[in-house]
């Protein structure tokens, strides 16, 4: 092979390596960008008057007289809509049966669309579900709902070889020549005045409990649940892992038994997370009966088992990184082995141990599969501390899954899902960045 060819191969080899790393960085950015931009939308968004009404009625937030004046303004802007509807209905009742039959279905649909957009129609009985008691609280959703009010979706299945094609039909066509004709341009042109959108910062998203299965409110129960589970898992795993690491580094002599022990630890690290979940169900709940059914305690124990190997390895590494001279000096001053470990080696290894601990915390906070059968429920109140022994809890990770797939109105609450993802991912990333930062400081100190 000629030298030029070899050089070319060498360069492209380097290039492919750099390309791989660039792809990795690109993947990270592509992953995080939607989570951060759309996740922020859960807290920073354009809120309608319905949002402010909800805040006022449920939490007593905001300036009451001013808000009431605003609500009154919105009511005035909405009045023509309701008047047109009432007029039309009155006319319909007076008319003949054929006409009534013709307009019954379109009218019902239209009223429903207006109800979802603006909230309950005045005079109607107060609906049971909270999602029906308020109109659209977010301006972006309100615009979607407006288009539902103006157009109805028609599916065209005429071509059997292809999937159906969606077509938007203006509802106005159903009501041409009636009293309702002007309602559509009115809705379209006056949405602003009817809903009074305004930029809002809803930071209470983090501290409010959720209402009506996450249609309104915040994610405090999930945050608290994740906090309990993570801290609980650390409470079990940290002492056990630390002791195991001390034993393996300071006491154990290489023997067959220790070798098997190490294999077991790495096996534990390789067990699929869903298997941990099944084990937690079969052992902690069905056999040990730590609680009668799912509970935070059982979930925390399962998570602890999962992160135990990580903690052992990190702590072992940190202890091994302490220079042998420390220990030798301590022993030569007459300290016992335990004494030397406790007063000299552990403090020196502490930053390293902390780094590993923080990373495992992130892992425990983000893991879903082990808590599906042991601790997680989709909807729940924030737990008090003593309830963790008996009660299941919502958690960030589980609720992301649940709201994104099993919720009855997945599209309506995208912002909540993104908000949950944002909080979980930033929590985990902050923990990891803290670990990276600590590690950098340790290595600087070790280098002198």
């Amino acid at each position, binding site marked *: 092979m000629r030298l030029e060819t070899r050089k070319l191969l060498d360069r492209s080899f380097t290039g492919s390596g750099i390309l*791989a790393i660039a792809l990795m960085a690109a993947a990270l950015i592509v992953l995080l960008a939607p989570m951060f931009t759309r996740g922020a939308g859960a807290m920073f968004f354009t809120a309608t008057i319905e949002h402010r009404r909800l805040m006022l009625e449920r939490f007593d937030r905001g300036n009451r007289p001013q808000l009431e004046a605003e609500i009154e303004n919105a009511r005035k802007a909405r009045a023509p809509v309701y008047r047109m509807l009432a007029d039309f209905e009155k006319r319909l009742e007076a008319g003949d049966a054929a006409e009534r039959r013709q307009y019954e279905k379109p009218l019902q649909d239209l009223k429903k669309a207006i109800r979802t957009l603006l909230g309950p129609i005045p005079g109607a009985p107060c609906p049971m579900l909270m999602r029906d008691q308020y109109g659209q609280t977010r301006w972006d959703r309100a615009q979607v709902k407006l288009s539902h009010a103006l157009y109805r979706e028609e599916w065209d299945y005429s071509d059997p070889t292809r999937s159906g094609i969606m077509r938007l039909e203006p509802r106005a066509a159903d009501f041409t020549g009636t009293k309702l004709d002007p309602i559509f341009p009115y809705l379209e042109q006056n949405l602003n005045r009817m809903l009074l959108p305004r930029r809002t910062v809803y930071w209470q998203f983090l501290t409010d409990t959720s209402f009506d299965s996450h249609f309104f409110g915040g994610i405090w129960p999930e945050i608290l649940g994740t906090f309990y589970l993570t801290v609980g898992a650390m409470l079990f795993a940290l002492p056990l892992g630390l002791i195991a690491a001390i034993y393996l580094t300071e006491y154990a002599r290489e023997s067959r038994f220790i070798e098997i022990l190490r294999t077991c630890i790495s096996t534990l690290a390789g067990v699929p997370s869903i298997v941990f979940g*099944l084990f937690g169900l079969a052992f902690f709940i069905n056999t040990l009966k730590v609680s009668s059914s799912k509970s935070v305690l059982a979930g925390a124990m399962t998570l602890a088992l999962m992160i135990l190997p990580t903690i052992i390895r990190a702590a072992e590494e940190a202890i091994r990184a302490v220079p042998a001279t420390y220990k030798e000096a301590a022993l030569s001053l007459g300290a016992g082995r335990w004494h030397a470990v406790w007063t000299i080696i552990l403090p020196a290894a502490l930053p390293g141990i902390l780094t590993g601990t923080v990373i495992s915390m992130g892992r425990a906070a983000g893991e879903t599969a082990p808590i599906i059968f042991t601790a997680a429920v989709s909807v729940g109140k924030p737990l008090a501390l003593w309830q963790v022994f008996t009660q299941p809890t919502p958690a960030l990770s589980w609720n992301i899954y649940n709201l994104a797939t099993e919720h009855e109105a997945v599209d309506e609450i995208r912002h909540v899902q993104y908000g949950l993802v944002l909080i979980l991912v930033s929590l985990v990333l902050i923990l990891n960045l803290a670990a990276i930062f600590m590690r950098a400081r340790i290595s600087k100190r070790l280098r002198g």
Partner: protein
Amino acid sequence: MPSLRLSHRTRLRQRIGAALGSGLLLAVTSLSMLAVFFIFFFIARDALPFFRLQGMREFFTSTHWYPSAGEAEFGALAMFVGSGLVTMGATLVAVPLGIAAAVCLSDVIPFSLRQFVKPVIEMLAAIPSVAYGFFALVVFAPLLQQQGGHLLAVASWILGLPMAVLGIVVLSDVVTDRFQDRSRTAVRMILMALLGGGTLAGLAWVGHALSALKIASGTNALNVSIILGIMALPTVVSVSEDALQAVGRELREGSYALGATRAEMVVKTVLPAAAGGILAAVILGIMRAIGETMVVWMASGNAARIPIPWYNMLDPVRTLTATIAGDMGEADHVTGSARYHVLFAMALCLLVFSFVCNFISEGIVRRARKKAGG
């Protein structure tokens, strides 16, 4: 004044204390061993009733998965194929990328730059699986469904074109090595033009075929494979980078001294020397992919049938892990039924698989370490 010599009693007490203490530590340490045994025991205890009730044959060979029918059928072959398919796809994504990145980290880029790349890998590893699953379901799946064909076509061009150009140049160089000086350039040009034209036509055809592709559903094996591949990347990169670092400086310097370029040094010396560790990295990556639950549960489509043909990545699939997670909710009420135990049978298969993988990779790493040490 206390004497320096300890009394007999104190020494005895100290010794007993030390023995007790170390025994206690050993006991605590053994807990993780106990945990492994317990996991095997409790999973197997709930899995065996299934095999007793239903036998092995249907479970491993049938694709009829109707656990809630009156005549319940528990054929899990489709799940095994599904798990295998997405794991294979993830491996295809993670292994080439991961090894290239690891080589780049250990032998190409300078130390100062490495400090910026390492956090990227750590962040990729830290992002929770449910967040990956959410991305796959909410962002990636609609994108695949609407723009999938074009996306695949662009990807095939981006990957194919540089590789094709490189291949053509090298091939024509190698072929024309034997020729006389004067005719060499001419022959090379002709060869390159011929090959280049052919390859361009081929790429254009492939791109055209791909962009005409209609993807019925974005939640399919391809989606999951790519996301799982990204999730497995950090494992592959960091473990194989460790293996590459463990190859000594002497080997590298010796290779350079013989006149090798960096690429030749890495490919001919370092990679063979680190082969064991890299294999271990690949195995660990596979384990990560096959044991992953949330991504496959959310974004694989969960259709319990074998794709047609079996390697069709654009069909929805269902994996073992997703079946366990998804069916437990319904099976929970009837603890003790075959429906409940079949999930444990699946878990047992996963457990045994990961145990075997772990054993193999441990063995490889240990042997490599012994070789490096002695």
